[in-house]
């Protein structure tokens, strides 16, 4: 399900960036350990950034040798990941802006960020996607997604994301 989010997250600041918003469900059971140690319940922006940076670095290097040999900097995705955590709203916003939105990698990057964070943020299981129209349109085009996933190299990488969570 896709919902519009612009105003709430200060859409103006983020401009046309793609946006994945993770919402705290508030249903996660509190463990004994957490009760004792006062471990913070919420995740902070630097932690999320680290998770994503490592993940995207791996992803991009893995797909680097297929049809377009792109460098991390050219793709410019990682540089533009500016994570925002909003405690009052209990939401995490992850903007990402692939500089080549029409290639199949943009679809994969969007999907893999979604999958990775869903796995790493179990307490934030509800999410809203407010991607740029360009990426949203690709993700909604089943022919484009089928063709991108058919590239076995990319499929391996997505499967790695999924298996890392299990």
């Amino acid at each position, binding site marked *: 399900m896709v919902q519009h989010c612009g105003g709430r997250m200060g859409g103006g600041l983020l401009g046309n960036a793609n946006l994945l918003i993770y919402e705290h469900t508030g249903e996660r059971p509190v463990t004994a350990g957490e009760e004792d140690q006062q471990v913070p319940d919420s995740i902070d922006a630097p932690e999320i950034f680290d998770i994503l940076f490592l993940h995207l670095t791996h992803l991009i290097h893995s797909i680097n040798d297929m*049809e377009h040999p792109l460098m991390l900097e050219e793709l410019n995705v990682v540089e533009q990941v500016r994570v925002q955590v909003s405690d009052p709203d209990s939401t995490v916003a992850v903007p990402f802006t692939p500089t080549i939105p*029409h290639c199949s990698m943009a679809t994969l990057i969007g999907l893999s960020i979604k999958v990775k964070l869903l796995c790493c943020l179990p307490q934030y299981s509800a999410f809203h996607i407010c991607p740029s129209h360009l990426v949203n*349109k690709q993700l*909604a*085009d*089943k*022919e*484009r997604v*089928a*063709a991108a996933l*058919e590239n076995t190299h990319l499929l391996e990488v997505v499967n790695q994301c999924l298996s890392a969570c299990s």
Partner: protein
Amino acid sequence: MKDSLVLLGRVPAHPDSRCWFLAWNPAGTLLASCGGDRRIRIWGTEGDTWVCKSVLSEGHQRTVRKVAWSPCGNYLASASFDATTCIWKKNQDDFECVTTLEGHENEVKSVAWAPSGNLLATCSRDKSVWVWEVDEEDEYECVSVLNSHTQDVKHVVWHPSQELLASASYDDTVKLYREEEDDWVCFATLEGHESTVWSLAFDPSGQRLASCSDDRTVRIWRQYLPGNEQGVACSGSDPTWKCICTLSGFHSRTIYDVAWCQLTGALATACGDDAIRVFEEDPSSDPQQPTFSLTAHLRQAHSQDVNCVAWNPKEPGLLASCSDDGEVAFWKYHRPEGP
């Protein structure tokens, strides 16, 4: 409307995969299907049932997205995500790949033969449309590369009687091309759809073109020649194509295919809501502003998205459909009796 589309049978054409497209041969005796399993299957009847006559499995490395029969019925072209187009020659029940057309940079989305049999068109995610000429020795040569679209080109179709080509794209437009001197040019861009245009179909006369889209509408476009009675302005000697009808509010998801029956004029659609619909033009409506009525709406025609609908070219009312569920279904359409 309940009984206007009756199921004749189903076949598991591409098991554990999706079936993307169907094409009847010109004689209407064979149906080619293609899918995500990289195979093409040829179906024919034995008595009352549809059986698989041939499997073409060595041609492509990836999904076969579309297939098209030559006007003579002796050749089949297949367009694949592996960026190639195969030309298969039919020898009774055997098909042999005689040529592989290369050149597109990535997935080929569609292939179509011109009615003359001498021209072939292909299109791709690389945003281009290619026109190929074939000579008497079955040699293929690319005669034009058209880069008019700004995005992935989803479908190409030839006019039934003129050497006129139409293409549909992820850029939300339809483009029309004709030959000018020694090259092909885009002479018209049809704008109006609000999202990807997935497929196209000309009416039997070639005067009108139907397009279907991710915006959940079907649009009907009409050709106006220079000097037309209606006073529609034309630029130079090129015709103008105007949208004369929009079918909206009927489909709840992306419309992947539209098929215009060359025998009866009925319009069928394949939709992402798993349904097949048929529309007929109201006989008393103004040709410049026609109205179409929904005469069949079959929900759950398949258990998943319907990707293609194809009218049999010889038997009126015989319709084939295929789906993401991997199945091909055969239907008999009867125009419902009026009240």
